[in-house]
């Protein structure tokens, strides 16, 4: 089954410059494995060695962030559109420190991202 995948500029070196590629799979993990078989190295930019979706990559199925759909287990159907965007993030904090707080604060920020942050009335 065909699933359309939109590739961001920074990863187009893996797709021969293609902005959109097609792949197949019953879930996101299978789709990325399928893509990697034709676009070697792509999966490694999206999935950590531990087998989790990289924290600073946003992947969407249609209009949903896959983090709310089970991440790599997110179910896919024929005709779905998958969009990959490198997170827009950074800041003055040293990376080691950012990575250390990442598991707490950023996970919380990501998990809350579907709704307004509770302290929005600041």
């Amino acid at each position, binding site marked *: 089954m065909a699933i359309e995948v939109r590739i961001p*500029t920074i990863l187009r070196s893996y797709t021969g410059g293609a902005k959109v590629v097609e792949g197949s799979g019953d879930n996101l993990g299978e789709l990325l494995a399928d893509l990697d078989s034709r676009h070697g190295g792509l999966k490694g930019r999206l999935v950590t060695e531990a087998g989790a979706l990289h924290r600073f990559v946003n992947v969407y199925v249609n209009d949903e962030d896959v983090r709310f759909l089970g991440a790599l287990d997110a179910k896919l159907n024929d005709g779905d559109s998958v969009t990959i*965007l490198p*997170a*827009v993030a950074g800041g003055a904090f040293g990376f080691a420190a950012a990575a250390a707080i990442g598991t707490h604060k950023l996970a919380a920020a990501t998990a809350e991202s579907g709704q307004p942050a509770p302290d929005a009335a600041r």
Partner: protein
Amino acid sequence: MLSIDRSIIDAIVAHARRDHPDEACGVVAGPAGSDTPTRHIPLENAARSTTFYLIDSMEHLRVWREMDDRDEEAVVIYHSHTATEAYPSRTDITLAGEPGAHYLLVSTREPDTEEIRSFRIVDGVVTEEPVRIVDAAVDPHAVQSYKFGQSPTAVDYECSGA
């Protein structure tokens, strides 16, 4: 070289001052391939941090889709550093995901000094570039006096990298 309108720079600096001491972030979209930033889109820092910024994933998708629909791209991606210089940190370099964008940094560490610098960040390599601020409100044909390094309609900020 980044050429950008004075009114957009003013809006970016105002956004950074408003969110200080948290880091502020946003993009300036422009027609795809034009390298000309025309539409300022201030974004919310979902990390709400003085040392980190992160654009909410759903806002990210919405804004990027909208640019796509309008045949635009993110010409400038900006954020502020609120206690340190306007230079990309290791975090900025590691996480830079748009090789075609101008990464504009604003420092708000000095309340009265406008500190803006622009960089390309590609494959972990940072290259500073000059910023040319164009004042579209000034009539270029009007007779004016100006200092060395300036023209009636633009001010060039030189940098060591270019």
